[in-house]
């Protein structure tokens, strides 16, 4: 898992390399997996059409028991659990597709199912011992037990290192104390993955380190607080969970003591994919409903679908949705390989999809006109439901920093080596040569050879900007050295550049597959989507690249500062 020598498409991009083999051909499910998925999606869709009533769930602020029970019976609570523990061992791609389908109908339901397995028990699945898995997974797979992920605290959100909860070792158990907030599934869960500070020996010194625990509801000292009153996803349960002197047996330690931060990060890495796929589902529903309206609603004697400003919105929704979908399922495919680091790609999928679904919903609502603003139509609810996506499971801001900084690590390390090497050229010749070689291969060899020639303009752009990304990276590292971590304007631009490059590649790969499978004529719309998306994307990349040197960052900071000083509108 994200070990050093694992391949990573986006990290390689920072070195100017396009690791084609990771992204071509597009990782569509095939054979039996595809057939099974088809049956599953049919069944889930049918169930949702019959039983999931989004408007009522939103109004009553709860999901009927019949629905949760029905989803459990369908087997949706144990999708990603191996068969040995009574689960169904679905691939990430299939799992994401189911979450997408649920999200077409209702975000609260998708968040409940996703919160359970994308994050709730994911730590156990990734880091649990055989014994721990045997003990808990079968009950979680059937939905007899629901799971929740307890990381966030009143004082620790994006800064997960600042946790206040503590667990003190007392013989055969730990004494757990702390308050968690905004816990998804808090009111439903029987199983909690909890993060708390423990004292760990680091080279003879006692240090505070985050550790992950599995806590179950029957342990004394757990209080579930009242349901939060939320803007959206109102049917899902979100509560505080308070732990007071909870005796957690030593065998409920998850992973190694002091390793909790890594557990949390790994869980969120794959959890984010579920979120991204949920955005695809919501976007599909928005397209369907607004397009139906545009064809029916007549103004000035004809359907509004005939007006270009409406058509523009329809096209934009489709392009955005296709791009989100392409990135999300490409990344899920990378996750399914099991041998690559997909942490940047999943963060990109989350940030990109959650930002774009907001635009899609905005476009759909606008097409609906006044109707879109009314509760009788689903659009205002979808908008409220979607807003959380940009905030939870890592705010889009913190994830952009992560994307940029994790990417810069590679070039950064090498610069240190190079700086050292220059002082003592002979002694460190090996390293220097290696660096030089890398430079040469990245300049000479990094081409895309597997994309369809119809998309040549597009993939040449990827090549062009993949060559510029390492230059941009090296430039900012040289300029700011260690201070680069504070330069968020620049980091955001770097994150945007690599995101656009990745999503372009995903779209090109998928459309290439479409051309091969269906032929050019049948893939025409997809080719158009690809061209449109790539045209917008490379222009954004070019602009972001230019703005590394020429920008208004300083003025913006000044405006912000004078506003902060007055703590009000400064003019």
């Amino acid at each position, binding site marked *: 898992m994200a070990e050093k020598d694992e391949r990573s498409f986006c990290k390689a991009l920072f070195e100017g390399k396009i690791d084609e083999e990771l992204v071509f051909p597009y990782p569509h499910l095939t054979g*039996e997996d595809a*057939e*099974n998925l*088809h*049956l*599953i999606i*049919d*069944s*889930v869709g*049918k*169930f949702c059409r019959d039983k999931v009533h989004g408007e009522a769930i939103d109004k009553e602020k709860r999901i009927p028991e019949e629905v949760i029970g*029905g989803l459990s*019976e*369908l*087997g*949706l609570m*144990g*999708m990603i659990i191996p*068969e040995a523990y009574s689960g*169904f061992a*679905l691939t990430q791609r299939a799992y994401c597709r189911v979450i997408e389908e649920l999200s077409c109908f209702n975000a609260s339901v998708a968040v409940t199912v996703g919160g359970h397995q994308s994050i709730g028990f994911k730590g156990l699945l990734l880091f649990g011992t055989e014994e721990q898995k045997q003990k808990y997974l079968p009950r979680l797979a059937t939905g007899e037990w629901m799971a929740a992920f307890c990381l966030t605290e009143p004082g620790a959100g994006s800064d997960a290192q600042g946790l206040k909860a503590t667990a003190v070792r007392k013989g055969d158990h730990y004494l757990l104390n702390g308050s968690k907030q905004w816990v998804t599934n808090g009111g439903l869960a029987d199983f909690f993955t909890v993060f708390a500070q423990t004292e760990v020996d680091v080279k003879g010194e006692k240090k505070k380190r985050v550790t992950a625990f599995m806590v179950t509801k029957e342990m004394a000292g757990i209080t579930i607080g009242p349901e939060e009153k939320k803007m959206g996803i109102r049917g899902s349960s979100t509560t505080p969970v308070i732990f007071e002197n909870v005796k957690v047996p030593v065998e409920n330690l998850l992973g190694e003591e002091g390793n909790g931060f890594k557990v949390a990060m790994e869980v969120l890495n794959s959890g984010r994919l579920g979120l991204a796929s949920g955005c695809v589902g919501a976007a599909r529903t928005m397209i369907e409903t607004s397009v139906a309206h545009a064809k029916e609603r007549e103004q000035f004697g004809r359907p509004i679908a005939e007006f270009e400003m409406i058509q523009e919105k329809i096209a934009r929704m489709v392009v955005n949705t296709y791009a989100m979908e392409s990135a999300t399922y490409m990344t899920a495919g990378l996750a399914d390989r099991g041998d690559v680091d997909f942490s940047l790609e999943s963060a990109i999928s989350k940030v990109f999809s959650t930002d774009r679904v907001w635009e899609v919903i905005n476009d759909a609502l606008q097409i609906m006109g006044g109707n879109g603003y009314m509760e009788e139509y689903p659009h205002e609810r979808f908008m409220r439901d979607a807003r959380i996506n940009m905030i939870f499971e890592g705010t889009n801001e913190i994830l952009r920093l992560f994307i940029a900084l994790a990417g810069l690590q590679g070039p950064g390390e090498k610069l240190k080596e190079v700086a050292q090497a220059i002082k003592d050229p002979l002694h460190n010749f090996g390293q220097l040569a290696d660096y030089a070689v890398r430079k040469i291969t990245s300049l000479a060899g990094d081409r895309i050879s597997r994309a369809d020639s119809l998309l040549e303009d597009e993939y040449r752009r990827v090549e062009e900007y993949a060559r510029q990304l390492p230059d941009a990276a090296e430039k900012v590292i040289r300029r700011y050295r260690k201070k680069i971590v504070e330069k968020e304007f620049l980091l955001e631009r770097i994150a945007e550049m690599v995101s656009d490059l990745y999503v372009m590649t995903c779209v090109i790969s998928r459309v290439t597959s479409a051309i091969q499978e269906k032929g050019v004529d049948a893939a025409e719309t997809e080719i158009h989507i690809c061209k449109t998306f790539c045209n917008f994307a490379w222009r954004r990349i070019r602009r972001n690249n230019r703005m590394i040197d020429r920008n208004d960052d300083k003025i913006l900071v000044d405006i912000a500062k004078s506003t902060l000083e007055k703590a009000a509108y400064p003019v």
Partner: protein
Amino acid sequence: MNIIVCMKQVPDTAARIKIKGDGKGIETSGVSYVVNPYDEYAVEEALRLKEKAGGEVVVISLGPDRATEAIRTCLAMGADRGVHLKDPSFEDADPFVTAQLLAKALSGMDYDLILCGKQAVDDNACFVGPALAEGLGIPQATVITKLTLAEDAKSVTVEREVEGGREVLQLPLPALVTAQKGLNEPRYASLPGIMKAKKKEIKVMDAAAVGVSGDDVKQKIETVSLSPAPERTAGKIIPGEPSEAVKELVRLLKEEAKAL
């Protein structure tokens, strides 16, 4: 208790149907297919009977390659095995030929009860079930809303909705019944069911295996033409004060629409 369910794969009821250029069939590209909804009631009823009385549920379907998927769906719901009647010469089978082919294929099988949907929602012929019962020479009851198996498992009692009332019939087994909406609420194929279905057998029978050739499969009923339902015309808005508008509405309903 061995039960056979006859199932047809039909275009998704939500699919937009386009008529082919020759006016005698529909465009099939881009259309998604599902298990005929009335056949789902039949499958569900068969599964419930099996759960009570034991035995085996076999799903039989006549159709092209893609019909395998619909059979798989029924297996995922819980049916034990499938039989797929598939042969290039079956492609144009009309309801009459279909019933005859099914009768041929079933004549060698062991069954106590045959369940069909009351009609397939694509051609709405309501033909195959009754014709199959005739072909097999067994009693039948159509459009049933309730089915009870006798204690001795030698007969079934069924209820049918008839104009203004209800009819109760008893049939000795083996018999054939066709299912109406309301008979039950079909279950959803679950993940465990789908995983199990992978291991279940689907036996393919071609013309030779069914024991038919030439004239047996020749269309007896010819489709002369298909045409789409007329497009909905624009609605009419009646302006003016409500009391006036209502008068006008009543007049229009009486004189123009002749609805009153």
